[in-house]
């Protein structure tokens, strides 16, 4: 693959270039700002562009946006220190092929390039569980539930009706009902009357 690499940090740029070349790819261009990168991409359309997020002039996302708008064939991979879902979500709007955290570049970048060669996309796995602190005091069974689901089952244990729960959590009754169904599914509770209530009273401890 013909690859362009852009990073305003010379040390990182150098590291990335040698790492990519070691994997047998050809680095056709390495530059230190977004503008130069965009120019090269528009002129030569390399197969892949590995872009840093924070760069002077144009940043990585802006370059991705331009490429996306120009319907260029060059695939974009963002390589960044930002471990932010929001950034990733934004970047995904511009159809990027990869999102790699710099501190996890080894071996994530290698995996990413392989996936892209196979026509797939790759986003760092460490992104999603980033916020989660150590699992709380809750039992193992509950760890499969989301926060909302956990809150709801806790409230069910205090014998609150769906309506009361909805009011307490600022949700609609319908949403609460939806969550109840999910909880029953996730915990494998038999679909009997009051089964969830009984389960909750028995298993949730105050």
């Amino acid at each position, binding site marked *: 693959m013909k690859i362009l690499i852009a990073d305003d940090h010379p040390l990182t740029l150098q590291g990335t270039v040698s790492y990519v070349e070691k994997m047998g790819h050809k680095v056709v261009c390495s530059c230190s700002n977004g503008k130069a990168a965009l120019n090269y991409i528009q002129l030569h359309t390399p197969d892949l562009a590995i872009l840093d997020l924070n760069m002077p002039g144009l940043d990585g996302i*802006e370059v991705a946006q331009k490429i996306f708008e120009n319907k260029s064939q060059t695939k974009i991979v963002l390589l960044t*220190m930002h471990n932010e879902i*929001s950034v990733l*979500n934004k970047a995904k709007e511009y159809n990027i092929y990869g999102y790699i955290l710099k501190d996890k570049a080894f071996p994530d970048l290698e995996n990413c390039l392989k996936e892209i060669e196979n026509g797939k996309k790759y986003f760092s796995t460490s992104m999603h569980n980033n916020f989660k602190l150590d699992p709380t005091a809750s039992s193992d069974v509950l760890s499969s539930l989301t926060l909302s689901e956990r*809150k709801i089952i806790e409230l069910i244990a205090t014998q609150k009706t769906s309506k009361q729960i909805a009011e307490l959590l600022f949700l609609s009754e319908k949403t609460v009902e939806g969550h109840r169904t999910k909880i029953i599914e996730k915990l494998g509770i038999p679909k009997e009357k009051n089964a969830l209530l009984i389960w909750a009273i028995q298993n949730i401890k105050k």
Partner: protein
Amino acid sequence: MLTLKKYTFLLTLIIVSISCEDKKENFYFEKVTPPKEDSTKVWLRQNDNYQEDKEHYLKVFFKYYNTKLANKEYLNASKILDVITTKFVYFYDFDPRLTETVDAFNLKYRNKLPALKTTHIDNYYANLEFDRDNVKKAKDYFLKITALEPNDYKSCYKIARAYYDLSYTYFILGDIELSIEANEKSRIYSERIRDKESIVSVHLNYINIYKANGSFEKAISSANEAIKVFKEEGNTYDYFMAKYNKCSVYGFFGKTQLKNNYIHTTYKEYLDSKFDSDVLLLCLSDYEIEALLNENKTKEAKIVLDRIRPVAARNTSQNWQNDYQAALALYEIKNDVKNCNTSYIEKALPNLLANENYERANLFYTVLLEKAIQNKEFEKAVFYTKEAYRTKDSLSNIQNKLENLALAAKYETKEKEQKIQLQHETISKKNTTIFALALVFIASILSVFIYFLKQKQMKLFKEKEQSQQFTKNLLDKTEEERKRIASDLHDSVSHELLALKNSFEVNHFQLNEKVDTIINDIRAISRNLHPVLFEKIGLVNSLEQFIERIENTHQFMISSEFNYQSSLSSEKELQVYRIVQEAVTNIIKYANAIAAKISIIETSEKITLEIIDNGIGFNVEETLQSKDAFGLHNIIERSKAIGGISVISSSEKGTKIVIEIKK
């Protein structure tokens, strides 16, 4: 807006009060200064020019008058005719040439002009008929004028004068009741033009009316009032006329001694005054002659008589001719009763009686009686005595005397009431003026007050704006600074750490872990300092991530509802983000809530940010005044900085923060 409304209200009040005043004014007519007249007209107006050379005067008038007619300026012709007829009537000069002119105008041009502008024609005819002893005809002409309603000062004046003359005419005809009525009408119209002389003329008529009613004191006091006012006004003609009338009162009541003395002084006063009026000279002389003859001063009487002979000869007034003839006859009777010629008087009598001119008939009968006595023709004397009494009584029917007295008294009270009413009107008018002035004054004070208030308000507003701008700048600068620190930390420090980590040998696992932790810590600090790529990602995405992070870190549930189209600037969005951050931090720290909700709702007019929790709540007032309310003040100040209004309410069921930002 409110002050503006007040102001308008006041203005309306002023306008209304002024317009009310205007309505009252309609009763009165104000004298208007006439436009500048041409030199000929001014010349014609002057009495001297008439008196010096009447022929030349008439020539000038006819030339002027005919030019106006030739140019079809009928109104101007009528106006000059008005001036001339008034003057001739004043001098009791009924020159046939003028009468001819008036006749012609009456026939050809009068119908081209409005009735109110041609009353002088009727006035001329009335006076003419009066002078010819056709008193009834004169009355009809006067009635023609009084039938009109005035529409300006001049027409009102003319109508007042017509009533005055009508009153005298009724008196001559012996109808005292109508005379009083007309006289009072004259007073009302005179008051409407506020003409002092015109008002006092009413007294001249009352002299005769009281005379006829046998009320000597009242007749004299009316005369004195008239004399006083005419003297004050400098109206010499009417001053002497009033004195002449006073003389007639003395005569009527048989106070010969008083009459004689009074006419002597008056006659002397007149001669000394050098005032030149044929009419005055004639009438005063008549009484003077009568008085002198009464005192048997025949020689003196002859001197007076001789003085007026040429005047009487040239005078065209039959009225004064009659009086002169009477005086002459009296002199002749005294002087040489055998040769005296009273044929003029005897011939005139039937006409006077037919026209019910009782006053002069009485005078003539008195002359004839005198002659009869002198001639010792007692039968005739008895007849003339009877006739003299009859004519005197006809002036006022004895039966009616008491009634008329009561009527006059009634009018007098009416007059007083009128005066009181007039005073009231003047007072109320003054009050309205004072009220209007006060209103204007209040309005101006108010406007000045409002002006200063507005200035102060503006100053306050500016200060407020400035302080808000300052807060905004401060907040923006802080954010800028935080952003710089965040990116410095993130970009440099993290990268250096990363480089450090990569330089280690592979098996330094523990060290790697430590570096990763430091990198994550720096990330968290950096993120707290400034939300990552906020300008790129936008408010809603950043908030969603913020909520997710809070939920995960604190196991605290936050539901959200975003209906926001990114219509705020990035700086303002960041402030909204900070407000949410602050509010949520507070909820987690203090509220002890089960859950919270954040919503941003955008409509066409405003954006509403709402943060609700179901925690324990707090006393908003107290907290805001305490020292440790930095978080709340932070929210309020930030919302002010972005032009929003914040409302914080709290109870034991939870807290609600609402911020409305107008678009």
